[in-house]
Structure formats: C-alpha cells, structure tokens
C-alpha cells in the first residue's frame, strides 16, 4: 500500500502533468532551458517547496517523457545554509536515489523548515522498454543556480544538471 501523496489537500507535483506550454501560465510548473553540453531545469510554484517539487519533475522529464507510475515511496532529507544550496542538495538527493535504486520518480512532495528539507518521492524501477530513458543525470550543478521570488510572489528554482 502506497502512502498516497497529499500536501494541504493538493496533489503532489507530477512529472507528466504540467509545463509551460499550457496557457495562461500556471501557478506551478516546470521547464527545461538550453545549455551547451547539459540541460537546464526550472520549477516554479507558490512556495520554495513547490518550486523544488516542480524542478524535480523537470529532472525526471530530462530522462523520460513517459508516465512514471507511483509504485513505491522513498524518503530523503537534506540540509544546507541557504535555499540555493538546499535546492542543489535536494536534486542531488533525488539523483542519488535514481542511481542507487535504478528507479524513476514521477511525483514529489517537499517540506522545508529552518534549512531542513524532508522530501518524499514516488516512482518505479526503470523499465527500459517503456520509459526509453535517455541521459542519466550525474549531478546538479551550481551553474545558472537561482532560487527566488518574482513580483507576483511566485517562487522559482533553477540550475544546470550535468548529464
């Protein structure tokens, strides 16, 4: 039985649900942006936690464009002295679990309190035939790293991921 992801009654961020192509611009979403050798990922939402969840969706979408089923849950935690370092730590925690468990994750729930992040990831083992995974993320970098809030109060979190 899977612990069904809930956060304030909202669905968790899903790697197959949304990106910037929908109009008008959603309050939460993710996108990829270009980098010469690697790939840029950006997530946004009403809180830093939601932006982090969305960015993790972008990370998964760099590997597969297929649906990832929430068959099992993995918990991670990390801490860092500021939100930007915490963001890179969060992505690297997800990358570590992907690599170690040979899994892909499609749904994410994040809570941040006092520089401590608790994350829950829902996913399934890589199925090469179905997921047709492309590049394997090696690590999140501090290049093009930005976590901030725009004038409408929307938080975004972005960086380059080495693939």
């Amino acid at each position, binding site marked *: 039985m899977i612990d069904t992801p809930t956060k304030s009654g909202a669905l968790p961020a899903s790697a197959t649900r949304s990106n910037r192509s929908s109009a008008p611009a959603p309050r939460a979403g993710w996108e990829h942006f270009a980098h010469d050798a*690697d790939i840029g990922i950006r997530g946004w939402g009403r809180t830093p936690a939601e932006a982090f969840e969305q960015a993790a969706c972008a990370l998964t979408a760099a590997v597969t464009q297929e649906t990832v089923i929430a068959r099992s849950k993995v918990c991670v935690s990390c801490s860092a002295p500021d939100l930007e*370092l915490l963001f890179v730590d969060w992505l690297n925690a997800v990358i570590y679990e992907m690599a*170690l468990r040979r899994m892909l994750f499609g749904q994410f729930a994040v809570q941040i309190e006092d520089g401590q992040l608790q994350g829950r990831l829902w996913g399934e083992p890589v199925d*090469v035939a179905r997921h*047709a995974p492309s*590049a394997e993320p090696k*690590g999140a970098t*501090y290049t093009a790293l930005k976590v901030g809030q725009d004038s409408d109060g929307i938080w975004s979190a972005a960086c*380059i991921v080495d*693939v």
Partner: protein
Amino acid sequence: MEISRVVQIDPTAWRLEPSGAMRVPVVIYADQGLLQGMDDKVIEQATNVATLPGIVRGSYVMPDGHWGYGFPIGGVAAFDPDQGGVVSAGGVGFDISCGVRTMLTGLTVSDIMPVQKRLADSLFRQIPAGVGSTGAITLDAIDMEAMLAGGAHWAIERGLGDETDLDRIEEGGRMAGARPDCVSDRAKERQREEMGTLGSGNHYLEVQAVVEIFDSTVAGVFGIAKDRVVVTIHCGSRGLGHQIGTEFLKEMVVAAGERGIVLPDRELACAPINSEVGQRYLGAMRAATNCALANREILGHYARRVFTHFFPNAALSILFDVSHNTCKVETHLVEAKRRELFVHRKGATRAFGPGHESLPAALRAVGQPVLIGGSMGTGSYILVGDARSEAQAFSSACHGAGRALSRHAALRQWSGRKIIDELAAQGILIRSPSSRGVAEEAPGAYKDVGAVVAAAEHAGLARRVARLRPLICVKG
C-alpha cells in the same frame, strides 16, 4: 562569441589580457569560425578561472571549448601549491577521469562487413549501457577498496583484462595517491553494481574504420593503417565519480562561504592544495580515477570477448587509454624553471610530445596518442602530442567535437529513429536502448570535428595522424 572581446595573436590563438581580479590572461585556441561559434559564457567561465589563487601562466580554452559548469568544457588551468594554488572539484567535473581508449583489432573493414549486423547486436547485448543498466559484477567492501586502490591492475587480477594493457594506460593503469578512505559510503554504494557499465549521454563503444592517414610514419608506430578496424570506448568513473564530485563541490562551496571567500561562480568551489579538504579531495579523486581505469579495462575485456567469438585470432591490443576530466601533478617548464603543478583538464586531453618520460618506450619517439571523439556520423580522430603544446597549454589538446546545439535544441530538430535509419543507409549501425538519447546525440548537434582538430594542429597542440569513421556505435 563576439570576437572583439579578445585580441588575435595568430589565426588560431586569441588572448584576453588580465583585468580586475584576473591573475593571468585567457588564451583561446580556435580558428575564427570556431571562436564565433562559442557561447559568450565560455569566455566568462575562462575569465573566472583566471581569478583563482595560484593559477600559473594562463587560463586556456581548447578548440572544442563550450559552456560548461564552473570551468568551460575544454578548459585547462595549472596551479602551484607553493603559491597558494587550489584544487577545484568543479574544475575536474562530475565524471572524474572520463576518457577514451582505442584498441587495435588487426582486422580490416572487409573482415567486419559480413558480420557487421551480428557483431553490433552481440556488442549491444554484452555491453551494459544506458539508464538503469547494471553490470555483472557486484563489489563487496573489500573488493571496492581494492578496486579504488588498484585501478586497471585490479580488473586484470580479477581476470577482466590483460597484463600487457597496462603499459598503454595512463599512469600505468593505477593512479598513485588514491585514498579509498576519503570516498564516502554513499559514493561506494552508488558504484556497487556499476563496474563494467558504459553509462549514457555521450558515452559510447564504437567499432571504427581508419579512413584517412595524415602522418604515415606515426601511424606505423601506432599500428594503424587505412581500412584497418579499431574499437574505441568512451566512458568514465560512473556513479562513484559523480557522487564524489557532488559531495566535494558542496563541501568546498560551504567552506569558501565560511572563510568569506567570494567565488565569481559557486561551481568554481575549490580548496588550497595544501589544505585538509584539498588533500582529501585529491585522495578521493584519484580513487575515482582508478575506478574509471578499471571500468574501461573491463569494458575492453567484454569487447575482446565478443570479437574473439567472431574472430578467434583477434587480439585487441590497446593503442592508448587517456582521460580528459582530470587534475594531475605534472612537471612543466615555466619561465625556464621546472615546476610541479596541479594541471586541471576539464574536457581536455593530456598531449605529451615526443620524448616525454611518462610515455611507453614504443611510443616515446613519436609522442602520445591523443584520442578525439567526434559524433556518430562524422567520425573521430587520432592525433599525436606535439612538443610545442608544452609552451602553448601545458601539453594539452582538445577532447572532442564540442556541442553546437543543446540537447534541448537537438530533440526539437531530430528524431532518433530517423537518425538511426539515415546512418544505417550510410553503413553505420547504431545500437541504443534510447531513441531519444540518439536524437540528443545527433551528428548535427556537434561542431565540425575536422575544424576542431585542424585548429588544434595549427595551434601546435597536437598533430593529426588518422581519421576514423564508425561502423558500429553502441550508445547508452
């Protein structure tokens, strides 16, 4: 890049004099077309590198330079520990000791063609490649320590390589100064089932035909001739290297912040070579180098096994195995004095010229083989180190073609299936678990590797010996 930002020295050398916090000039080796094709971020990143403590002589960019993270890809920088020099985890990158090995098969194209398809299928079955793949080897704690200390020697002791290979692998197949105790349990855990796996992205195993010889004397010494077939493997230290890079980057960023050091880019996080964290990183990085050397030795062994099945007399001897994401201690001549420097090459190949003491006896007279990976369609090159490169860039050269288009842009432009079919029509068989991965690595997404190596030759970094064309490409 706007070329007015740099001063042209000659047709393939451009210079930006130090200003502000820069300690040394930036020197870019490229022809005008390659320079114009480089992102503005390349010079920004090379300029940032030029500000690091203890940097010696210059912040160099090779002809395949492109926007990386921290250092540009194609970046070379040497640091003197006695002048406060630093070691940078970002200057080595996540894929520590990623590199290339080329093996001679002794076969000709006409030997391969009748079995090309079966050989491609067999290599694809035998070489674990792509996201989620696992190797046939699982390391326990004792084996892990032995592998991290022993490199290719460890693989050979396990029956996964050949003693005669060691002479043709950098560092004799084992990087000295490795400290497995400096590698975290998480990094070791990430590597437990990854030995003998190719990885994904731009990593590959190719069967290649020699299609053009530029220098027949050196080609003779290397054992290559037109229509001969070689096997080339491009991969690195897998999950272990990625995790070490991740952990030390964070440690160095936090430590810099605590010491009040302002980094122009956090990815440049570094520590003095003569510091506790600097030494710990070097110990871990060298262990990761051994992991990469062991991994390529095992993949070479698998390739041998497949070739022996089709060609019982094929021996597959190594031409050379060279890494292009490294920090190595080397002696260089600076203002007529020999100095021991820590040379970072991030997407750049060591390229020792003729006579260098570290080269195996059979190659010493001509220089080090410099192996340049191109794209699946356009092919690759074998170069040889040029004595002039010592003065140009601490004996360094390019490492590949360099991307012209991002993965993002490549995906919008090409379909993997179409590329596989088009290349098959040209006699190049692609085997990959991911058609999207193939699209991201489309030949058109890369710069003209011919222009890159011509610029490297003109600049005195390395000379062309042979051009290779793929017959089979196994991609992760």
